[in-house]
């Protein structure tokens, strides 16, 4: 640990501010890292970490504030600028060319040439030197990158940053795709770089890692600095306390709910090691950090990924699962990846809303556009979706309105079990509030608990909330939301789902401790 008092920091930012429309993502953030130091940047999802990283990397422009690299002003206009100024980012998603060799990747963009011809010898030397500096001369410069393990690829990416003469190395959730042993190796490597005098920014929400790898920490919450200190002198709980520190608002309506019949039973399901029961009239939350395996669990339940072992029973149905069977059984899923999977962006609102249930919109095989539009118009009205009409392409809507279209698909289908994966990711506060209200209405609708088994009545279109209580399975990385909306919450950590407990028994602090593995660290 270098003595840093008095010395100018290798990198610093002062009063950085960034707003997206009315949402203030960063509100005057200060941050500095010195040479020979690992500084951890921690915060919950939505605290502003990714915006900060975007600004550092030149992908976003700050509204106010200054940044300096070794005292010189730093204002990157695009990612290449950042790279030239010596700020290198290692993202969760690596940015290597998988078909090229290790050395080709390391010198990519700065290939040594003589009169336009690439000098392979010098290329190899540069690559070998960088790899040796990292303590991994065992990786051959001639290996094709795609053949390396994720850990090896990450190493190549770091080597590339070093070879291009970086002054600040930013690691964004670097352990998310690594096995336990590889994490060990990475930490050794970080220690080595630190001793060589590199300045390292380590972004993570795994408190145990932060405790182990960093010298100092800086905590962000709601786009502001809320605390910093020397890691070795701080307890894990205190860092978590800084990350959380907020009371629940009235954002989350909650009418009287009474849990009804069990409608979804999951027994010893792998992947996910999950066992739980979901009842009508109940919202069951699954908490966890990104990469904990929550999405995979939901996708497996919905039939999008194969069941390795275990049993899923939806009311009376069990046996093999496919998405079409799930819709028929009365289960619908909202994808976390709205653009990549949730919506067909070039198609109309009406097409997107009614896609799962076209058979109710005309005789035999026919689909009558007028009835499609009428069904969609109802939901546009009911969910207050801002658009020019049912025939507008989804791509032209704002994020919040797109999400409401995706949600309306489940309502149009009138599913009994709603599987929601990050339903409020990246949408504005008013749309969020609407979705919370909707979830509450769905589970607390007038009960008609005499009937058993999911209903699939193809003649009823667009009639929500009048039937029986729905059941909701909700995944979120945003803990206040889970505590506000759910009746019971289970925590998923490192691919395993824990037992579900009443939401009243959880606190944000406890959820974060459980999810980040801090309980094990302290």
């Amino acid at each position: 640990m270098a003595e840093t008092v008095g010395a100018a920091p290798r990198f610093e930012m002062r009063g950085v501010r960034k707003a997206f429309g009315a949402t203030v993502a960063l509100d005057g953030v200060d941050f500095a890292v010195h040479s020979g130091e690992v500084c951890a940047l921690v915060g919950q999802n939505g605290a502003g970490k990714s915006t900060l990283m975007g600004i550092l990397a030149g992908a976003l422009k700050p509204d106010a504030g200054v940044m300096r690299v070794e005292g010189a002003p730093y204002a990157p206009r695009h990612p290449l600028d950042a790279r030239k100024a010596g700020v290198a980012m290692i993202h969760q998603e690596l940015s290597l060319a998988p078909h090229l060799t290790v050395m080709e990747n390391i010198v990519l963009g700065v290939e040594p040439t003589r009169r336009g011809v690439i000098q392979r010898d010098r290329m190899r030397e540069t690559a070998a030197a960088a790899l040796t500096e990292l303590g991994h001369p065992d990786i051959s410069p001639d290996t094709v990158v795609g053949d390396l393990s994720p850990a090896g690829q990450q190493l190549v990416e770091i080597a590339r940053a070093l070879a291009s003469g970086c002054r600040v190395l930013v690691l964004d959730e670097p352990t998310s795709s690594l096995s336990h042993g590889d994490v060990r190796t990475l930490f050794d490597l970080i220690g080595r770089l630190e001793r060589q005098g590199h300045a390292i920014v380590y972004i993570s929400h795994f408190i145990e890692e932060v405790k182990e790898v960093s010298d100092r920490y800086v905590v962000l919450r709601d786009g502001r600095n809320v605390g910093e200190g020397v890691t070795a002198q701080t307890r894990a709980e205190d860092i978590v306390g800084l990350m959380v520190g907020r009371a629940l608002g009235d954002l989350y309506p909650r009418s009287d709910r009474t849990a009804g019949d069990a409608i979804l039973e999951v027994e010893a399901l792998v992947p996910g090691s999950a066992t739980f029961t979901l009842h009508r009239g109940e919202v069951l939350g699954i908490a966890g950090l990104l990469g904990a395996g929550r999405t995979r669990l939901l996708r497996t339940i919905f039939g999008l990924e194969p069941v390795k072992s275990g049993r899923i029973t939806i009311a009376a149905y069990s046996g093999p699962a496919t998405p079409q069977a799930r819709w028929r059984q009365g289960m619908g899923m909202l994808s976390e990846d709205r653009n990549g999977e949730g919506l067909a962006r070039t198609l109309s609102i009406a097409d997107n809303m009614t896609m799962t249930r076209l058979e109710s919109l005309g005789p035999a095989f026919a689909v009558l556009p007028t009835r499609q539009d009428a069904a969609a118009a109802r939901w546009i009205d009911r969910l207050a979706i801002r658009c020019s009409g049912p025939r507008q392409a989804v791509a032209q809507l704002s994020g919040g309105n797109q999400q409401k279209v995706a949600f309306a698909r489940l309502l149009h289908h009138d599913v009994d079990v709603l599987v929601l994966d990050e339903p409020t990711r990246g949408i504005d506060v008013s749309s969020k509030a609407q979705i919370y209200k909707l979830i509450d209405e769905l589970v607390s609708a007038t009960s008609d608990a005499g009937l058993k088994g999911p209903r699939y009545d193809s003649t009823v279109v667009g009639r929500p909330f009048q039937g029986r209580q729905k059941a909701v399975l909700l995944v979120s990385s945003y803990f206040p939301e889970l505590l506000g909306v759910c009746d019971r919450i289970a925590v998923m950590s490192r691919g395993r789902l824990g037992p579900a407990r009443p939401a009243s028994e959880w606190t944000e602090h406890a959820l974060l401790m459980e999810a980040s593995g801090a309980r094990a660290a302290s």
Partner: protein
Amino acid sequence: MKARRFLDESGVLIGLVVVALIFGALVGPQFFRAANLELMARQTVIVAAAALGMTMIIVSGGIDLSVGSIVSLSTVVVALLLKTHGPALAAFGAVAAGAACGAVNGLLITQLRVVPFIVTLGTMLLVRGAAKGLADERRIEAPITWLNDLLRTARDGRGWLLPTGIWITVALAIVVALMLRYTRFGRHLFAIGSNERTARLCGVRINHTKFAVYTLGGALAGLAGVMEFSKLSVGDPTVAVGLELDVIAAVIIGGGSLLGGKGSVLGTLAGAAIMVVIQVGCSQQGLPNWVQQIVTGTIIIGAVALDRWRQKST
């Protein structure tokens, strides 16, 4: 909004009218005589029939390069069957052979998970080879039947106003257009083409739908082959080389997108007609073949660029 949508859907029709007017002005009023219009319609039919299937395939985000080969196989099958059977059965056999080729495409694409471009590039050669093998690398003479009259001019009393082959294609065009717009199958094709992962999430049976669309595409190419036979009056395994490119061009000029999720029957027919108008217009104006090719090439690129530009300005 209404005006814009009208423009979006009719843009290619306007293009067709403009191209026709230009050649009308160059060639003179005889360009628009009934006989000349019928001639152009007859020339459009083969590409148009095959392009109906291609429209569906491109809407679903796929492509079929084996169309030309299927057309030649179909002419061979008709000629061979005519030697022993009646014309109706021969035509049916040719369409069935086309459908079988399409089914093979569909199976390979869905089961091997190889992209359609590669699969149909392979079957393009496979089917061409099969046609040559079946015909013993020769043209096959066949007895004259009413099949030979499908595309013969209606001006000497055959057919009603227009040759029967044109009526068949028009009827099928209406069926395909209705299918794309008003059936579950059609909406599923758009969904798969727009975002296959969304379609999967929504429980669309992707493999079934893709298999069906390639089979249908093959059958329509088989029908185009029957028309080709009608024009040639022999089975020829070397005919229609490169036809698939004309067919794809018709769909693209008509507003289809190779990325999927876009395309319409009306647009495709107009696209096919534009190419024929250029071809006929150039030859009647006495312009050499190379001018015609340069004009057609320009139109293809221009149509897509215009489309891009229009979308950007929205």
